[in-house]
C-alpha cells in the first residue's frame, strides 16, 4: 500500500466526517449498494460457470466495485462510457438487460455482439456503453474524440473512460490525454490503479508511484482517490464531471484499489504476489465499507442484505437458464457486420462455407490468460 495521501470519505467504522458526505438520498444509496452486491454475485457465478466449462473465460472485478460504480454514478445516463473489461457493474447501474450480459459470456444468439468477442467484452449502445476492446488503452483516445465531438457540436454531454494502471503506459493514454487537454474536451479519465497489470506490479510499470501525477504532463488536473470508498469516488468524479460539463476541460482521476482475484479465469496470482498484501486489502473491501456506512445511516440490515443477495442470485440464475436454452449464432452471422452491406467477396466466402458437407472441426484449446 502506498504512502501517498488521497481522499477517503468513509472511515473504517462507516463514519463520514462532517462536510464530506455527498448526502445521497436513501433510495439512491440502497440502489448503489444493490448494484455493487449484484456485481459481486455475478463475478462469483461466472467464475463457477467458467470452472464448470460452461463458459470459456471470465474477468472478475471483485474488489473494484466502488471504483467503477461510484464513478459512473457521477454521470447522467446520456453521458458516454468508454470502458475496459473490468467495469461490469456499470451496465447493471445503467439498467442493462442481464440476459444481454450473460448471453455475451456464452456468445450465443442473444448476445448483442453475436458471439464475436470473448466474455465480458460487452457492447451496449442503448446505455451508451461503448464496445469493450481487448487491446489495452485504445478506448482512451476514443473517449477524447467523442468528447471533442460533443464540444464541437455544443452538446452538454461528458465522456468517461476507464483503464488500468498498466494502460497508462499505452500509446493511447498519451495521445488521448494530450488531445483532450489541447481541445479542452469534456472527458473524465478514470485510471483504476489496482496495483497489477497481470503479473507486473505498478513499480515495474511506471517511474511514479502515483498515476494521477501524470496529468501534469498534459496540463490537466489529476486527482487521487480511495477507490474502495464509493462515496469518495463519487465525490471526486462528480466534481470532474461538472468541470467537464462547464467546458473547463478534462480531469485524470486515479482510483486506488486492488484486484482481489486473478487477472482472469486463466491466471494464478499466487505465482507472483504474496497472500499478506491480499489479506490486507480484504479488510478494505468496498462493499463491506459501504455496508457499514449504510448501517450507520440505518439503511442496512440483515433482511435487506438477504434480499439483495437472493434477488441478485435469482436474477442471474434465471438469466443463465434462459441463455443456456439458446443456440450459437448461425454460421451466416460470421460474415455479417464486417461492412454495412456484405460485399460480393464475402458473399462468395459465405456460400463457400455454407455449402460444405461433413461435420465441422470441434472446439479446441483453452485460453491461457
Amino acid at each position, binding site marked *: 500500500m502506498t504512502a501517498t495521501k488521497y481522499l477517503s470519505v468513509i472511515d473504517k467504522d462507516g463514519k463520514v466526517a462532517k462536510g464530506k458526505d455527498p448526502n445521497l438520498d436513501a433510495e439512491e444509496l440502497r440502489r448503489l449498494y444493490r448494484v455493487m452486491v449484484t456485481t459481486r454475485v455475478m463475478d462469483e457465478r461466472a467464475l463457477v460457470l467458467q470452472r464448470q466449462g460452461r463458459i470459456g473465460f471470465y474477468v472478475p472485478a471483485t474488489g473494484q466495485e466502488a471504483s467503477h460504480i461510484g464513478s459512473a454514478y457521477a454521470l447522467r445516463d446520456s453521458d*458516454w462510457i*468508454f470502458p475496459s473489461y473490468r467495469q461490469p457493474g456499470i451496465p447493471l447501474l445503467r439498467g442493462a438487460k442481464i440476459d444481454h450480459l450473460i448471453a455475451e459470456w456464452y456468445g450465443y444468439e442473444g*448476445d*448483442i*455482439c*453475436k458471439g*464475436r*468477442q470473448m466474455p465480458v*467484452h460487452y*457492447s451496449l*449502445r442503448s446505455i451508451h456503453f*461503448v*464496445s469493450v*476492446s481487448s*487491446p489495452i488503452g*485504445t478506448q*482512451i*483516445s*476514443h*473517449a*477524447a*474524440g*467523442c*468528447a*471533442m*465531438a*460533443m464540444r*464541437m*457540436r455544443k452538446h452538454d454531454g461528458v*465522456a468517461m473512460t476507464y483503464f488500468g494502471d498498466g494502460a497508462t503506459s499505452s*500509446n*493511447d493514454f*498519451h*495521445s*488521448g490525454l*494530450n*488531445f483532450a487537454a*489541447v481541445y479542452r474536451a469534456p472527458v473524465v479519465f478514470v485510471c483504476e490503479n489496482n496495483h497489477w497489470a497481470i503479473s507486473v506490479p505498478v513499480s515495474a510499470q511506471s517511474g511514479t508511484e502515483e498515476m494521477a501525477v501524470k496529468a501534469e504532463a498534459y496540463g490537466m488536473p489529476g486527482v487521487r482517490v480511495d477507490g474502495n470508498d464509493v462515496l469518495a469516488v463519487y465525490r471526486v468524479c462528480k466534481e470532474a464531471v461538472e468541470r467537464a460539463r462547464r467546458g473547463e476541460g478534462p480531469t485524470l482521476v486515479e482510483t486506488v484499489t486492488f484486484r482481489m482475484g486473478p487477472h482472469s479465469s486463466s491466471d494464478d496470482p499466487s505465482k507472483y504476489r504474496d497472500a499478506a498484501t491480499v489479506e490486507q486489502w480484504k479488510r478494505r473491501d468496498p462493499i463491506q465499507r459501504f455496508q457499514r456506512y449504510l448501517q450507520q445511516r440505518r439503511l442496512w440490515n440483515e433482511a435487506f442484505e438477504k434480499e439483495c443477495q437472493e434477488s441478485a442470485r435469482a436474477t442471474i440464475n434465471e438469466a443463465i437458464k434462459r441463455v443456456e436454452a439458446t443456440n450459437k449464432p448461425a454460421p451466416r452471422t460470421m460474415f*455479417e*457486420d*464486417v*461492412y*454495412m452491406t456484405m*460485399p*460480393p*467477396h464475402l458473399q462468395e466466402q459465405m456460400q463457400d462455407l455454407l455449402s460444405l458437407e461433413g461435420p465441422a472441426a470441434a472446439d479446441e484449446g483453452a485460453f491461457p490468460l
Partner: protein
Amino acid sequence: MTVMTLIQAVNDALKHEMRRDDRVVVFGEDVGVKGGVFLATEGLQAEFGKDRCFDTPLSECGIIGTAVGMALYGLRPIPEIQFLDFIYPAFDQIVSEAAKMRYRSGGEYTCPMVIRSPYGGGIKGGHYHSQSAEAYFCHTPGLKVVIPSTPADAKGLLIASIRDEDPVMFLEPKRIYRTLKQEVPEGEHVVPIGKGRIVREGKDATVIAYGAMVGICEQAAELAAKEGRSVEIVDPRTLVPLDEPLILDSVRKTGRCVVVYEAPRTCGYGAELAAIVAEKAIEYLEGPIVRVAGFDTPFPYTLDNLYMPDARRVLRGIQKTFQW
C-alpha cells in the same frame, strides 16, 4: 466542368461535402492555416471555421483514435495522415479499432470515416515519403481501400467514400497530384465504390494497375501497340471491395494478365490480383501471370526512378506473357 488537377479535385470534394453535411470534419497535422503540405485542405479552415478544420498535435495515433471517437458519436471525420509512411503509429487504431468496431459490437457501433493520405513515389521523397502501403489495409477486413487515378475519379470516389458507412482508406497518388489536369464535373459527382473502369480497351493482354501506375501502363501500352500488341488496361479504383467481374472478364477476353503496382513485390496487392486470376480464370490464360512491382527493398532516395516500375518494365512484363 472545370479543369482541375487531382489535388484540386480532392479539395473540391472536401468543400462540397463539408457544405452539404455539417457532421463532416477535417483534421490532421498542418491542415489548418497551412492548408496541408500539399494544399488538399486549403481554404477549409477559412470557410468552415476551426471546429470543422483544425490542426492536431503530432500524433497519428491520436488523430485516428480521436477520429474513431468522433465517428462513434456521429460525426463524419476525415483525418489526414500527412504521408502514408507516417500512418504506422496509428496502425493499431485502424486495424484493431476502426476496422473491427462494427463487427465486434454486432453492428451497433460504426466508424464511418475517411482516412486520407498521399502515398507512393515520384516526388523525390526517399525512404519515408514514398511508400505504398495499400496491401496492409487490403488485408484488414472491415476497411475499404480506394485509390483514384484521375482528377474526376478523385472527386467522385472521395465523395462516395465520405458518404460510405464504413471506414475507408482513401489513398492519393501524390506523384500525379499536379501532373494530370482533367475536366471534373462541378458540384455533385459520385463514383461508386466497388466499380472499376476500363482505361483502354485491347484484346491481346490485360494490364491491371491503379493510382500513378495507370499512366505508366498507358505509356507501356503505346509501346506495345508499336509491337503490334493490343493491351487492355483495367483500373480497379477500389481495391477492397474489388470489381472482380470486370477484371476476370477482361482476362478471359485477352488470355493474358500483367499486374502492376509500385509497392514491394512480396505480398503486395498485385499478389492478390494474380491469385484471384490464377484461381478463377486460369483456364483462359495463354501465358504466365506477370507481376511488375516495386522491389523488395525499402524505398531509395537517389535511385527512386529505378525503383518505381516504368514503361520499360511494364512493356517487358507484357512481352513476357507472350513468351510461353
